[in-house]
């Protein structure tokens, strides 16, 4: 019974979806000369992943290096955004006049595509790699500030009353009440930020070049290697999914 349920809920339905997807893909590939089918793509992927970490100079490296480079940029940009965005979120959430001061600016800047900031990055840093990191930073910082601030604002009055009745010091209030109470919101912000950052990195790298999955896609387009482009789409999707799953797991650990 358990066995059947497992297959029913966790494998069977996704499996049908995957088969249908492949069938549609095959039909589309049959009717178009340019689009390679699943089998051709699979062969190409096997060849590609048999040696993911070769290095033939800066313009020709294995898919593994490309992924790691992209992840590295996301990591640095995102890390810097967390370093600045989370404390800023605490301040915005705790001090009302700063909140009122900054919220129109944040509301205005948040919907801007992070790529629009790329020229500013190029101008300031005069190099492609820091500019790409800068774009990731900009895309990650808004959800980090907004969600942290929201968590601080939604701190239950009960907990603040406890803090007042126990006469806790500001430091204790922060470490024992404010920070743990805000953590779930912060993690939501981090999840949104990583999601956007991973979304944006492909486009940013297409524009800036260098080793990375985004530029790799662009390179393969110039080589007219469509199989590799499709593989890249899957790789980006799977890595994004893994990042998301990791953070969901982390968030579960800190929900009370």
């Amino acid at each position, binding site marked *: 019974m358990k066995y059947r349920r497992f297959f029913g809920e966790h494998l069977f339905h996704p499996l049908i979806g995957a088969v249908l997807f492949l069938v549609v893909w095959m039909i589309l590939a049959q009717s178009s000369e340019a689009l390679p089918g699943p089998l051709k793509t699979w062969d190409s992927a096997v060849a590609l992943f048999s040696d993911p970490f070769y290095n033939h100079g800066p313009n020709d490296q294995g898919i593994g290096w490309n992924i790691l480079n992209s992840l590295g940029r996301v990591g640095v940009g995102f890390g810097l955004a967390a370093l600045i965005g989370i404390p800023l979120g605490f301040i915005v959430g705790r001090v009302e006049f700063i909140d009122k001061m900054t919220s129109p600016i944040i509301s205005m800047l948040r919907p801007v595509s992070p790529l629009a900031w790329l020229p500013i990055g190029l101008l300031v840093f005069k190099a492609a790699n820091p500019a790409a990191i800068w774009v990731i930073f900009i895309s990650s910082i808004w959800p980090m500030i907004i969600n942290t601030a929201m968590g601080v604002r939604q701190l239950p009055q*009960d*907990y603040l009353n*406890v803090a007042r009745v*126990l006469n806790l010091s500001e430091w204790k209030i922060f470490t024992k009440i404010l920070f743990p109470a805000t953590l779930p919101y912060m993690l939501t912000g981090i999840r949104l930020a990583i999601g956007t950052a991973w979304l944006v990195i492909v486009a940013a790298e297409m524009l800036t070049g260098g080793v990375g999955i985004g530029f790799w896609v662009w390179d393969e387009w110039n080589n007219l290697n469509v199989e590799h482009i499709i593989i890249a789409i899957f790789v980006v999707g799977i890595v994004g999914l893994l990042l998301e799953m990791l953070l969901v797991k982390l968030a579960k650990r800190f929900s009370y």
Partner: protein
Amino acid sequence: MKNYVQVETVQMSFGTRKGVFVALKDINLSIARGEFITLIGHSGCGKSTLLNLVAGLLMPSDGILLCADREIGGPGPDRGVVFQNHSLLPWLTCFENVHLAVERVFSATEDKAQLNLRTHEALELVHLTHAEQKLPNEISGGMKQRVGIARALAMQPRVLLMDEPFGALDALTRAQLQDELLKIVAQTNSTVIMVTHDVDEAVLLSDRIVMMTNGPAATIGEILGVGLPRPRNRLELAGDPEYMRLRSEVLRFLYERHAHPEAA
């Protein structure tokens, strides 16, 4: 000490969108050391407001509140509060929740071992030694409320303030906790102010029952002295004529003279 807690001509009003709302008016109350006082009244009569004033969580619009001859200017560890919804921090274990309070009050004068000992003792007082390392979500509602009581008592407050502490519990757990509270209060000789809407609870626990009129501008309608000898036993009291008299006295106040405005 006769006037351990003193409330003198206190008035409390809140600014609302529709103008000033007077919640409490002309409140005068004097509480002796070691006395158990309950505040009873219909919902919305401002009994919690009065408790919060003594706690220092609210400041009166007019009048003055004193605790041990010192003006109450804000919350302080000399007044331990037990909240209705326990208000334990869910990310700390029961031990850590109590320790947070102990640490604040005694860390200046005592070392780590003594602080830990105090925390253990407070939890032992409410019979929760076995649940020390559990998180609040892992224990029952009654147990959470006991941790709340332990946290308040561990600070060795001059006054224990309880805001409908057993209101959210089922009847059996409530009775059990009332009995435990009676023992603890006898043991620690605490001064207690407790908000309740349960008539039996008020008569069973109190030395005096402060009955409040309906708001707005609620005030103290009557104060009923409860002369029942201690230790009190709920089973023996159930048929006691004096207990019955006091009980119907409170009921008459609440349902005849000051029936709830919506019911009237």
